[in-house]
């Protein structure tokens, strides 16, 4: 996979602000960020209100995805450029989401909102209007999504990569440290999982490390990249980031994001759990 097909630089974005074939979409964990200021011309998707079913725990349906993109003026041949706060966590989740529904040309801003801000580039508050389209989505591509039974069956046979922080992996924390330490589920990790935090794939400014560094990161942690791999975290966003690294940047073929992640696995009755480093 060529990096140029899936990543754009902040400079590329600055030069394509008025490109009608490009749709900039901001997806944040902290959904107040967009209204404080965003890249000129960017629209926003709300990770929960727009991208979660709301009744059952699942992605929105194909029909709802088509309606969302049509309403927001995204056509099948639009180059969708995603970015967001928190090192692109939720933007990468949206990237994975666009690939689930088969969008052809979707890319991330390397470094996301943080790199844009550290570059001291302009943010605006004006909300753009885009002309509605008639978007047609593909059926879900479940080759990049893992479900719980597949994860249980993968213990000891496939690569399982836990991309949470070491403190969450060991069972010391139940959630990322910028969130309250709540949650009824137990703490720990899926047995045989390797702890390779998502953050190790990124530089301090949020940009991705080089392919050579990334390959060394995973192989150095004992991941056989010739085998099938499942990535998980707490709710599937950070593992979408690591899925992006493995599947889109390194071109590893069978990599799935387990978006049920620890909030599902850590609540299942009777499944094996490990604690400690």
């Amino acid at each position, binding site marked *: 996979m060529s990096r140029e097909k899936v990543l754009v630089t902040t400079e590329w974005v600055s030069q394509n602000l008025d490109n009608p074939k490009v749709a900039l979409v901001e997806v944040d964990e*902290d959904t107040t*960020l967009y209204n*404080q200021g965003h890249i000129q011309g960017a629209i926003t998707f709300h990770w929960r209100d727009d991208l979660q079913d709301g009744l059952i725990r699942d992605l929105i349906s194909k029909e709802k995805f088509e309606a969302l993109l049509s309403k927001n003026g995204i056509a099948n041949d639009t180059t969708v450029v995603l970015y967001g*706060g*928190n*090192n692109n966590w939720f933007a990468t989740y949206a990237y994975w989401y666009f690939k689930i529904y088969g969008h052809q040309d979707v890319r991330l801003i390397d470094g996301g909102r*943080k790199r844009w*801000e*550290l*570059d*001291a580039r302009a943010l605006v508050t004006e909300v753009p209007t885009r002309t509605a389209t008639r978007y047609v989505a593909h059926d879900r591509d479940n080759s990049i999504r893992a479900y719980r039974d597949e994860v249980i069956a993968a213990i000891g046979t496939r690569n399982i990569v836990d991309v949470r*922080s*070491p*403190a969450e992996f060991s069972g*010391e*924390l139940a*959630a*990322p*440290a*910028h*969130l*309250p*330490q709540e949650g009824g589920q137990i703490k720990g990790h899926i047995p045989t999982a390797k702890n390779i*935090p998502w*953050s*190790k794939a990124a530089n*301090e*400014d949020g940009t991705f490390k080089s392919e050579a560094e990334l390959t060394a990161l995973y192989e150095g942690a004992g991941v056989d990249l010739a085998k099938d791999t499942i990535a998980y975290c707490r709710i599937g966003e950070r593992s979408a980031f690591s899925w992006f690294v493995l599947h889109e940047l390194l071109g590893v073929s069978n990599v799935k994001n387990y978006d049920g992640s620890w909030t599902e696995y850590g609540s299942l009755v009777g499944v094996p759990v490990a604690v400690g480093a």
Partner: protein
Amino acid sequence: MRTCGATPGGPSLDGVDLTTQSVIQGAVLRDGIADGVPNGTPVVNAHVRLLDRDGEFTAEVPTNTQGQFRFFAAPGAWTLVVLAPGVRKEVSVQAALGTPADLIVEI
């Protein structure tokens, strides 16, 4: 505008159960007249990274419109790294249950 001697720095702790949470919080301010006294304006959308005792990344937040940030850590030693355009600053901090670590970081 803060003045010398003002109490630090982070968002209100109303509603935070300090008996169960080890809070690290504060505010990032410009060192207004470069005299080491944190009397400058809040730095909005600085990025504050939390590293554990081994220097491993644990979490990151942008500062709010008052330059404030907050983490819910575990008791122990942590390092904050503050990033803003052209600026990088590290600060060591101890977290504990009961008493929040509340800091002013001047850049």
